[in-house]
C-alpha cells in the first residue's frame, strides 16, 4: 500500500478543532511575569525603582550572557545580557521583570516600576547608522555600526559590466517586516523541588537548541532542564532564535521556586519579538543584446537591529543575500558586498525565506527592467537565462540539482493565458479605470540543507542534522521520536506516511513524538524548509532499517529468505506464496520471544537514524495578476498561479497549504505589512490596526500546479518548500504592479508597495512627463465618463 503521495487528513487536526490544543498559555501556573520594557530607543539606565528583578539580580546569581558568533574576521561578536545592562538599545528592550499572581496584576506591577533612563542619540535607519559620526551601538563594534561585512567578486566582473550591451542599475528596498505568528511568544517554567529540575513549556521552533542556549547562559547542565514545545501557534522563524525572556523564565522559576508564565501580548510581539528584512539592494545587471545576463554587481545593506540572534546570528540576512542573489540564473560574473548594520531597533531574526524574498525581488525586477529596455517579453528573457543543464553551478559555487526552471515558467504562463491577459490589459488601458498588470517570478529555493551548509557559515553553534528514534511496541504500533519540532506544518502526518509505507502498516499505527527534550533525540527543530527533508529522510532510514529487522524475523519464522519478504498492509508475506505472518505477531515475538529473533537483531524492534544532507534546490514560478487603481494607488490581487517543483510530494494537501500560506505572507510583504519607526526610534506599528496582516478579502484563491523532479539530493525525493511561497510572491506582485503602471512611465521598487507609494510613483512619472494631467488625469477623466 502506498501511503506517500496521498492527501491523508492530518493527525494534528482533531484536537485542534475541538479546542483541545495545548498552547503555552494553556498550561497551569501559579504566577505571571511581565517584562518592563524600555520606552526609549537609546539611553543610559540611571536607576530602576520598584519591586522588580534586573540584570543586577541575574549577575548576583552568576547568570552570564547569550553568546554566539560566526567565525569570520568581519563578524562583530556582542554578548547579550538577559536583561538590559547599563544601556537600552531599542524600544521594547526588556529592562526588568515583575511577577504577579494574575496577568492583570503583573501588568499593574510593571507599570509601577520607574525607569530612570537618560536618553542618548539613537541611530534608527541604515543611513544614520552608517554616517561617519554615528553613535556606536556597541563598543565592541569598533568599525562603526557594521557588524558583518561579506564580499565576493569574480575576476572578470568589471570588464563584463563595461562591455555589456545594457547595464540596468536599480535600487530595491524592503521595509521592515514582522513574522507575527498569531500566537505570540511565551513560556511557562516550573521547577520541581524534589529533583531541582525545571520544565519550560515554550512556544518555540527548536526546543533542543533553546535548552542549550538557556543552560549555557544559566550555567545549568542540560539534564536539569526539560524544554517542551507544545502546540505552537505559528512561528515562521520568529520562534527560532533563543528569546531572552524564555531564559529569564527558567531563572525566575528556579529563584522563586514556583511556576511562572510569560505570555507575550500583541504589542510586545510587534515591538519586541524579532523583526526581519529591512534591506536595501543596489544592483547592476549587465546584459547582452539578446537579454542574457552576463554580470551582476550588488551592494546590499541589512538593518540587523540592536542585537544578534542566537544561534543564527545577525549575519544571516546579509550573508544569505550575498550567497544567493544570483538565484537560478546562468551568470558568468558576480560581485557583491553585503553588510549587516546594527541600529536602535528591535533585533532581527530569520523570517520565512530570510533574505530570499528580497533578493528574488531584486533580480526579478532587473529581469523585467532589462526585458522592457530590450523589447523582450518578460518570459522570454527568463527563458534565455534559466539553466538547462544540471547540476547548475551558481557563481558562488552552489550546485543546483535538477529542477524544472523553464518548464515551470511555461506551465505558469499557459495557466494564466497570456494572450488573453494582454488583450484585457490593452482594453482596460484604452478605457481608463483600473489597470491590470501581470508579474512573473522564477526562483530557486535552497532547502533541506544540513551541517555542511551551516558549517560553511562558520557558526559557533552549527545547526544542521536531524535524528530520529523509531520503535515498534509489542502490539505492533510504532513510535517515532524526532528532534525536529513542527508547529502547524503537519509534519506528524507526513512522517506517519513515510514510516507506514516503509514498514507496511497503516499510518494510524504510527505516533510521532516531537518538541520535548526529555523524549526526543537531540535535533535542531523546524525552520529553513528542512523538516520534511531531514526528519523525513531520517524517518525513512530508520523505518527501512526497522522493516529490514521485521523482514529478517519473518524470514526466520517462515524459513524464507529475508529478501523474499514483503511487508504490506500489516502482513509479512513470502513473495510468490500464500505464506504470511501478521506484523503484530512478529512484534510480539520480537519483544516476548526474543530468543526467536535472528542473531544480533533482538530483543525488541528499535532503530535510530540521522540524516544530514548537503541540501537540495526546489524551484517554482509564481505569476500574479493585479489591478491597480491609479487614483488611490490601491492594488488588488485578481489571480495567483504557482507552479512548484519540490520533488516528490509526501502529502499534496499539506504541500498546497504550505504554498498558499507562504504566498499569502509574500503578498502581505509586497503590499501591506510594514514595521514603522519614527526618527527617534519610537515604533509606530504596535497594533494590528497599524501593522496590517491581510484578511481573506485581500487574498485571492491561489492555483497550484505541481511538477515533480526527483533527484538523489534528498533520499525521500522530497525537496523542502515551506518558504517558497513567501520567497516568490513579493517579486511576482511587485512586477505585476509595475507591469500595470509601466505605460505611465511609473516604477515602484520598494515593498510594501503601499497605495501611497504606488500613487506617488504615478504622480512623479506624470510630473516627469511634464503634463500632470496626463498620466493620472487622463484616467481620471475617463473614469468620470
Amino acid at each position, binding site marked *: 500500500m502506498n501511503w506517500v503521495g496521498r492527501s491523508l487528513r492530518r493527525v494534528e487536526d482533531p484536537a485542534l478543532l475541538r479546542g483541545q490544543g495545548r498552547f503555552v498559555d494553556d498550561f497551569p501556573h501559579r504566577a505571571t511575569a511581565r517584562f518592563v520594557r524600555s520606552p526609549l530607543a537609546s539611553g543610559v539606565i540611571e536607576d530602576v525603582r520598584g519591586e522588580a528583578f534586573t540584570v543586577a539580580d541575574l549577575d548576583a546569581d552568576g547568570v552570564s550572557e547569550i553568546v554566539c558568533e560566526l567565525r569570520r574576521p568581519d563578524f562583530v561578536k556582542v554578548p547579550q545580557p538577559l536583561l538590559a545592562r547599563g544601556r537600552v538599545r531599542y524600544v521594547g528592550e526588556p529592562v526588568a521583570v515583575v511577577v504577579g499572581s494574575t496577568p*492583570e496584576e503583573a501588568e499593574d506591577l510593571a507599570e509601577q516600576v520607574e525607569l530612570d533612563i537618560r536618553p542618548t542619540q539613537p541611530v534608527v535607519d541604515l543611513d544614520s547608522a552608517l554616517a561617519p559620526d554615528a553613535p556606536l551601538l556597541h563598543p565592541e563594534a569598533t568599525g562603526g555600526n557594521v557588524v558583518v561585512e561579506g564580499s565576493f567578486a569574480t575576476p572578470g566582473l568589471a570588464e563584463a559590466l563595461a562591455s555589456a550591451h545594457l547595464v540596468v542599475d536599480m535600487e530595491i528596498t524592503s521595509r521592515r517586516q514582522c513574522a507575527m505568528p498569531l500566537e505570540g511568544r511565551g513560556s511557562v517554567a516550573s521547577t520541581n523541588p524534589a529533583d531541582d529540575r525545571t520544565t519550560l513549556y515554550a512556544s518555540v521552533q527548536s526546543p533542543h537548541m533553546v535548552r542549550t542556549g538557556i543552560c549555557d547562559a544559566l550555567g545549568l547542565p542540560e539534564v536539569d532542564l526539560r524544554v517542551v514545545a507544545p502546540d505552537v501557534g505559528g512561528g515562521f522563524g520568529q520562534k527560532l532564535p533563543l528569546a531572552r525572556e524564555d531564559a529569564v523564565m527558567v531563572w525566575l522559576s528556579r529563584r522563586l521556586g514556583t511556576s511562572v508564565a510569560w505570555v507575550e501580548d500583541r504589542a510586545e510581539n510587534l515591538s519586541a519579538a524579532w523583526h526581519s528584512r529591512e534591506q536595501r539592494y543596489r544592483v547592476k545587471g549587465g546584459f547582452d543584446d539578446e537579454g542574457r545576463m552576463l554580470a551582476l554587481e550588488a551592494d546590499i545593506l541589512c538593518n540587523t537591529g540592536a542585537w544578534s540572534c542566537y544561534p543564527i546570528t545577525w549575519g544571516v540576512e546579509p550573508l544569505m543575500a550575498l550567497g544567493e542573489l544570483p538565484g537560478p540564473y546562468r551568470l558568468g560574473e558576480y560581485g557583491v558586498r553585503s553588510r549587516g548594520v546594527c541600529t536602535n531597533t528591535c533585533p532581527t531574526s530569520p523570517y520565512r525565506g530570510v533574505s530570499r524574498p528580497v533578493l528574488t525581488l531584486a533580480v526579478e525586477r532587473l529581469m523585467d527592467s532589462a526585458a522592457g529596455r530590450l523589447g523582450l517579453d518578460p518570459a522570454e528573457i527568463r527563458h534565455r537565462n534559466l539553466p538547462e543543464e544540471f547540476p547548475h553551478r551558481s557563481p558562488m559555487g552552489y550546485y543546483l540539482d535538477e529542477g524544472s526552471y523553464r518548464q515551470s515558467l511555461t506551465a505558469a504562463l499557459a495557466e494564466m493565458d497570456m494572450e488573453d491577459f494582454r488583450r484585457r490589459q490593452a482594453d482596460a488601458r484604452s478605457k481608463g479605470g483600473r489597470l491590470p498588470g501581470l508579474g512573473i517570478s522564477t526562483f530557486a529555493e535552497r532547502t533541506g540543507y544540513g551541517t555542511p551548509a551551516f558549517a560553511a557559515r562558520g557558526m559557533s553553534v552549527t545547526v544542521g542534522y536531524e535524528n530520529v528514534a523509531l520503535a515498534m511496541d509489542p502490539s505492533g504500533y510504532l513510535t517515532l521520536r524526532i528532534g525536529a519540532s513542527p508547529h502547524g506544518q503537519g509534519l506528524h502526518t507526513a512522517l506517519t506516511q513515510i514510516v507506514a509505507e516503509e514498514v507496511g502498516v497503516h499510518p494510524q499505527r504510527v505516533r510521532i513524538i516531537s518538541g520535548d527534550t526529555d523524549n526526543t533525540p537531540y535535533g535542531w527543530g523546524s525552520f529553513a524548509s528542512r523538516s520534511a527533508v531531514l526528519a523525513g529522510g531520517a524517518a525513512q532510514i530508520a523505518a527501512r532499517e526497522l522493516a529490514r529487522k521485521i523482514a529478517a524475523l519473518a524470514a526466520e519464522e517462515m524459513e524464507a529468505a529475508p529478501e523474499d519478504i514483503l511487508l504490506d498492509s500489516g502482513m509479512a508475506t513470502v513473495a510468490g506464496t500464500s505464506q504470511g505472518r501478521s506484523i503484530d505477531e512478529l512484534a510480539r515475538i520480537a519483544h516476548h520471544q526474543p530468543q526467536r529473533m535472528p542473531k544480533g537483531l533482538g530483543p525488541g524492534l528499535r532503530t535510530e537514524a540521522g540524516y544530514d544532507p548537503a541540501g537540495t534546490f526546489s524551484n517554482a514560478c509564481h505569476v500574479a495578476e493585479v489591478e491597480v487603481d491609479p*487614483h488611490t494607488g*490601491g492594488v488588488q490581487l485578481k489571480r495567483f498561479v504557482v507552479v512548484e517543483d519540490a520533488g516528490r510530494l509526501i502529502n499534496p494537501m499539506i504541500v498546497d497549504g504550505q504554498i498558499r500560506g507562504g504566498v499569502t505572507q509574500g503578498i502581505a510583504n509586497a503590499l501591506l505589512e510594514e514595521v514603522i519607526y519614527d526618527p527617534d526610534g519610537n515604533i509606530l506599528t504596535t497594533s494590528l490596526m497599524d501593522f*496590517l496582516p*491581510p484578511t481573506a*478579502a485581500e487574498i485571492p484563491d491561489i492555483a497550484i500546479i505541481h511538477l515533480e523532479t526527483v533527484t538523489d539530493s534528498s533520499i525521500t525525493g522530497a525537496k523542502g518548500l515551506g518558504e517558497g511561497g513567501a520567497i516568490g510572491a513579493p517579486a511576482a506582485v511587485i512586477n505585476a504592479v509595475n507591469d500595470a503602471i509601466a505605460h505611465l512611465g511609473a516604477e515602484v521598487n520598494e515593498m510594501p508597495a503601499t497605495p501611497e507609494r504606488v*500613487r506617488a510613483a504615478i504622480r512623479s512619472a506624470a510630473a516627469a512627463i511634464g503634463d500632470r494631467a496626463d498620466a493620472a488625469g487622463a484616467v481620471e477623466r475617463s*473614469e*468620470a*465618463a
Partner: protein
Amino acid sequence: MKPAQFSYIAPETVEEVLAALAEHGDEAKVLAGGQSLVPMMNFRLARPSVIVDIGRLAADESLDGISVDEGTLRIGARVRHRQLEHFPANGLGPADGPLGSLLRGLARWVGHLPIRVRGTFGGSIAHADPAAEWCIMAQTLGAEMVVRSSTRPMRIVAAEDFFETVFTTSLEPEELLTEVRLPVLGPDWRVGFCEFARRAGDFAVVAALTALRIEDGSIVEARVGAGGVAGTPVRLRAAEAALVGAIPTPAVFHEAGLAATGEVDPSGDIHGSAGYRRDLTGVMVRRALGAESIPTPV
C-alpha cells in the same frame, strides 16, 4: 494587555445611569457595545475608574428605537450597527428612500461582522473617530445629538458643535448621548459614498459621503462630507458650492473633487501622508458623487 482596574455599575434605568455619571464625573466612561472603548482600555490608553454599563438598561424606545417624526429620523444611541445593516427596506415607510439606503449601505462598512454585532450607533458617534462612517454621516447630513444629564435639561447639539477633535466631543462627563436625529431625505435626494481603506473592515484612510437634491435636472442642494482628513469629519463647502446650480455630470463631479482636494488640510500619519489624504479626498468625493448606489465593501 489587560485593562487597569475599574469599578463597574450596570444601572437598570436611564435615570440611574445619569445619576452615576453625575456622581463620578470624568472618572467614568459609558460602556455600550465596547468595540472602541475596550480596545483602548486593554492597551491602557483609556483607564476610567468607573464603567457605567448601559447594556442592562431595560429596553427603551428612545435608546433602542428607530422612528420617523415629521421629517426627522430618530436613531436610538443603543441601536447596534447590525440592526441598521438589516433594517428592512422601507422600514421607515415612505420616509425610507435615500436615507434608508444610506443607513443600510453604510452599516456594512462599519468594522467586521462581530464588531457590528456588539457595537452601537451612538457609541460610534460618541467615540468620535474622524474616519468613522456614522460620524461622517452625522456631520455631512447635519445630525442633531440628543443629550441628557441629571443636572441640566435635555439639550440638542448640532453635529458641527458636537465633534470637537479626534475622540473628543462636546459631551460633558455627566452627559449621555441618547439619540441621534437625521433629516429624512426625500426621493429627490441622491446619496453616495466612497471609502478607501487598506484592508477590509479597517477604518477609512479617507471616506466621502455625498447627498444631492436634484430638481429639474439640476443640483439645488448639496451636502459633501469627508472623514480621515481632519480631527473631525468635515463638511466640504467648496465642493458643495461647485455642485449647487450645476447639472450633475461627470465633469461637474470632477470639479467638485478638485474643490474638495483644495479645501482640506489633513495631517499625515502612517496610513497616509497629508498630501496623499488630500489627493484621496478628491477621488473619494468624485466617486461618491458618481455612485449609482452605496457600494459594498470587498
